[in-house]
């Protein structure tokens, strides 16, 4: 019996003593990129949704449960962005460490300044978000709030490395400030530019870089473009001399093709997330890409 106990004790020491990285699962690639920058070599991060898929409509495949069931930290964009899939995956994960309210659960939207928070909810207005527009990571300054929340999560479950995470967080914030100046300078000549967007997911980007989204291809969020909406958009493009319709990799361009053919407006598929295109490897690349693309069509 003593022998067994000592073997168990040795096993326990080896298991807990190994300096294993914290296993993190994030719902999206943007959360993954920021978690990697804050966690550095103390973490291993995987994501569920790819950067080129619609984050509202991710299929809750059982295969995702394998990673979630072994995770120490779960990072979600929150609000109701992932409402159709992440609660089910969490409930099936059998992992009490990362359930909502546990130390390993990070809602990156905590303390976020939200836009378009409805005072009442009516699905007649389309797919509206009851807590406010959840595409907040598209304002780089909000990246700081995300990073703070993720760092808090890491420090809750790994307090020994607090100084390391805080140093990485400070470096991240400095880089955001530095890059933001660069991005704002690039966009400065185009402040006030009127554009059309496919879906209502650019409000934070629009506000940060001084764009003006006149209308959407979707008549209401989540409702496919209708012929009457196309006519409306064509008139708006002509009246306002709009240069570009922006869309995302997961929407078809058939409706904006019609508008482009009628008016000569340019179509631009922008990245809504890290990983949307092969060159976008980090959260910083996301804005580099989008701003360069936008500047090239607004010139």
């Amino acid at each position, binding site marked *: 019996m003593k022998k067994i106990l000592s073997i168990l004790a040795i096993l326990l020491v080896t298991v807990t003593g190994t300096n294993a990285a914290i296993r993190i699962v994030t719902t999206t690639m943007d959360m993954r990129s920021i978690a990697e920058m804050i966690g550095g070599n103390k973490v291993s991060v995987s994501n569920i949704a790819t950067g080129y*898929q619609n984050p509202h409509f991710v299929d809750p495949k059982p*295969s995702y449960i394998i990673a979630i069931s072994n995770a120490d930290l779960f990072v979600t964009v929150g609000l109701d962005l992932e409402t159709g899939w992440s609660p089910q995956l969490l409930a099936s994960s059998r992992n*009490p460490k990362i359930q909502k309210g546990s130390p390993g659960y990070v809602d990156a939207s905590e303390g976020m*300044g939200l836009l378009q928070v*409805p005072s009442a909810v009516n699905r007649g207005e389309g797919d509206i978000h009851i807590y406010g527009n959840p595409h907040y990571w598209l*304002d780089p*300054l909000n990246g700081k709030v995300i990073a703070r929340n993720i760092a808090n999560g890491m420090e809750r479950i790994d307090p020994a490395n607090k100084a390391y995470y805080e140093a990485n967080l400070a470096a991240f914030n400095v880089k955001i400030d530095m890059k933001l100046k660069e991005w704002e300078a690039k966009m400065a000549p185009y402040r006030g530019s009127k554009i059309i967007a496919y879906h209502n997911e650019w409000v934070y980007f629009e506000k940060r870089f001084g764009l003006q989204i006149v209308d959407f291809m979707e008549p209401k969020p989540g409702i496919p473009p209708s012929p009457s909406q196309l006519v409306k958009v064509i008139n708006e493009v002509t009246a306002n001399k709009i240069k570009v319709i922006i869309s995302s990799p997961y929407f078809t361009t058939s409706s904006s093709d019609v508008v482009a053919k009628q008016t000569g407006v340019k179509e631009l598929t922008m990245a809504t997330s890290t990983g949307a295109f092969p060159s976008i490897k980090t959260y910083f690349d996301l804005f580099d890409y989008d701003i360069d693309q936008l500047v090239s069509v607004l010139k």
Partner: protein
Amino acid sequence: MQIPIPKKIISVVLLMTIMSVNNRTVAQTAEKAKDSLLAKQAQDSIALLKMIEQQMQAGQTNQPQAVPQQTRSAISANPDIGVVADFRGSYISQGKRNFNAYLNETEISFQSVVDPYIRADFFASFSRDAATGKYGAGIEEGYLTSLSLPAKLQLKVGKFRQAVGKINPTHPHALPFIDLPNAYVNYFGEEGLNDEGASISWLVPNKAFYQELVFQVTSGAGESPSFFRGDNNKMIYLAHLKNFFTLSDNATLEFGLTGITGPNDSSSVTNMATADITYKWKPVQMNTYRSLTWQTEFFYSNAKYSGKNESNSTGLYSFLEYQVAQRWFLTGRYDYAQKPYDRSIVENAYSLTAGWLATEFQKIEFEGKMTHVNKEPDYNQFWLRWIFVIGAHGAHQY
């Protein structure tokens, strides 16, 4: 990061201090000067207020906004409540009453986490009895699920749709056709195998692919043709092994095996084995526009009856669902079924369903079905189903 709240508070405190200081000054001032001073103070206060407003507006454009107050409806301790109802029209080429229109079922769901250890899911159903046309209320499902058992175990207790294959655990409104496959109805009835008891599932620690083993013991109160609990202690036992493979980002394959044993209405035993296979193709990038599902289930039943009689029977269904456009789905299905009590009665059926999904909250489907039974005349059926959801609606199983 700076947030404007402290600034706001400081400004308000500053304003209040100035006003209170002003008040004291007023009390000490001579009567004559009172009117003009008051006017001046009012002007000062307004100017200060304007200055603060300007500062706050300027501050807002440079920094992330303060967290707005959440609306009361958004945060509450109530469970998620949803209503799913389906209105139907039907036609059958047999009998005297060929056409029918009715509100088939209204399901009200209450779902919430109870505490850090369990969650509760309840589905009350108001459904129409096909024979009498009268509506009755019942609990379709009501169960608790553990959230914090060790060793990757999950316990479910209550009344639940059991883990047989793919159709049985799914609520009928989520299926891509209106009627249920013949073989399934022959063995489990229109309501499916939905019973009271306990279920324990284990996530097999297999890193290569997803594997789940489920074991269920139920008391046999459900109304299924295959199983019936008599006045004794014989329970229904079920085991299901689910294997799920990710073939690529866009394609998955699921293979499941189920075994069930339990008492039947002849005070003897029915043993069943089923196998299910599902292939799904859904391009990750354009997953709201195109998808394809091929799903097949095989059923085998060995029913022992009083004396030395026994009956072996088999059945299957196979369907192919193709999403032709963002809102349009087409599903073709083939059914083969032997009657569990007499394998010489064989049913073959072919059906085609077109579904239009207006949004995630509304769909309209139309199905046509031809049934050929070897000892009876052929017949045709048509259905129209209009389903809507109001309130909360949780995600469906993949």
